[in-house]
């Protein structure tokens, strides 16, 4: 794999902004002199107060590299200084400092049959990968397993379902195509066996607890530990 593209500091103007659920904000930016990204890369968003104080956080890119706008989906964290501002105060027309794309490890270019296992807002970089896969007709090369507590806790739930992702909800039953419900539970190994089979690489994204769960699930399904790439966030206990 060659070096992934990287961009320096620039600015982005919010062109679209909506709140798909109570805790999510979807931001679509026009980015000045944008450097094309690879699916799975991220951006840094930096906020600047009038006295020069700044706060910055990294967010995964949800958009396909081909999308004229850069899309970020941000989960509002309790007391989150940057996510709280983006959720409550940011508006269309605002200009924010952005830096990206960044990161060359957690990227998928369709170069290997892969499986992605993501939890909650960890689906965002995987969504970029699925959009890319769909545009290039590479859906067979990227199988997706996503886990969330409820349908509303899962960003891009309907889009992921249309992609053919296996969705496991742990706190509510999920209606299954053709009738019946999948009872609330994490994915059973048997449910993901076919998706994992043939994968040469695996991508895991989610909270710290989720990442260790998903890694174990993949290892139990026969994925070698060194084929697993992990992107995790959040605090330990």
């Amino acid at each position, binding site marked *: 794999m060659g070096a992934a593209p990287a961009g320096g500091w620039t600015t982005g103007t919010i062109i679209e902004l909506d709140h798909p659920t109570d805790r999510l904000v979807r931001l679509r930016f026009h980015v000045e002199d944008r450097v094309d990204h690879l699916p799975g890369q991220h951006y840094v968003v930096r906020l600047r107060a009038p006295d020069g*104080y700044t706060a910055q956080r990294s967010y995964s890119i949800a958009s396909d590299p081909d999308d004229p706008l850069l899309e970020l989906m941000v989960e509002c964290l309790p007391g989150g200084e940057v996510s709280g501002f983006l959720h409550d105060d940011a508006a269309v027309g605002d200009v924010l400092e952005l830096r990206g794309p960044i990161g060359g490890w957690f990227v998928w270019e369709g170069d290997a049959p892969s499986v992605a296992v993501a939890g909650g807002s960890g689906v965002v970089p995987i969504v970029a990968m699925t959009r890319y896969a769909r545009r290039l007709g590479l859906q067979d090369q990227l199988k997706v397993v996503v886990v969330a507590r409820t349908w509303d806790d899962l960003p891009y739930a309907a889009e992921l379902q249309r992609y053919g992702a296996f969705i496991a909800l742990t706190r509510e039953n999920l209606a299954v195509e053709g009738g019946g419900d999948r009872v609330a539970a994490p994915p059973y190994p048997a449910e993901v066996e076919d998706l994992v089979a043939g994968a040469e690489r695996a991508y895991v994204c989610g909270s710290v607890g989720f990442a260790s769960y998903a890694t174990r699930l993949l290892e139990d399904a026969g994925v070698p530990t060194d084929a697993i*790439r992990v992107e995790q966030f959040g605090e*330990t206990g």
Partner: protein
Amino acid sequence: MPITRGFLGKRRPERPDRLPPGQYDTGSGWPTLTAEATPKLDVEQWSMTVDGLVDSPQTWSWREIHALPESTYFGDIHCVTTWSKFDTTFTGVSVDTLLEAAGPRPEAKFVMAHSTTGYTTNLPLEDLTGGKAWVVWDFDGKPLARGHGGPVRLLVPHLYFWKSAKWVTRLELMERDRPGFWEQNGYHDRGDPWLEQRYQGDP
């Protein structure tokens, strides 16, 4: 750069002199960030090697490294993902002690730290000498948790924390710098938090 309309900032640092630019105080939390699956490392199998451009390459078993003089770091740590953690205590052995045993050759200028997982990170040798770096196994008086690199990690607290390789097993002394894992993936070759050396191309 533009002021962000409506942003005042919540977390004014109480001790701004201790917080490098762009960082926030994570308080009692300790975020875990890892690019790989966390390995289960058996200390009976583990060893620490110092080799490359040295007079006599050295390898210590788990027991042997614990027999070396103990050294403790008390202070702050800083992660490129913008959290800083104040007043941490790590115990292990000073990298000076390991280097002294191996005898770096004069042409050795850089070090590649290797982990059991294959993770690598590069450092100038002078960032590992003079009481600035440790190989550690205790955090706050308890064995270091696996997710944080336990049972043993490198600790280079004056640089961003990706330089403090988890599950470290080897320090390779080199004449020329070459990029490690994150450095190949866009991160800075040195990573000084006070200079905000986060990504390639930063000062």
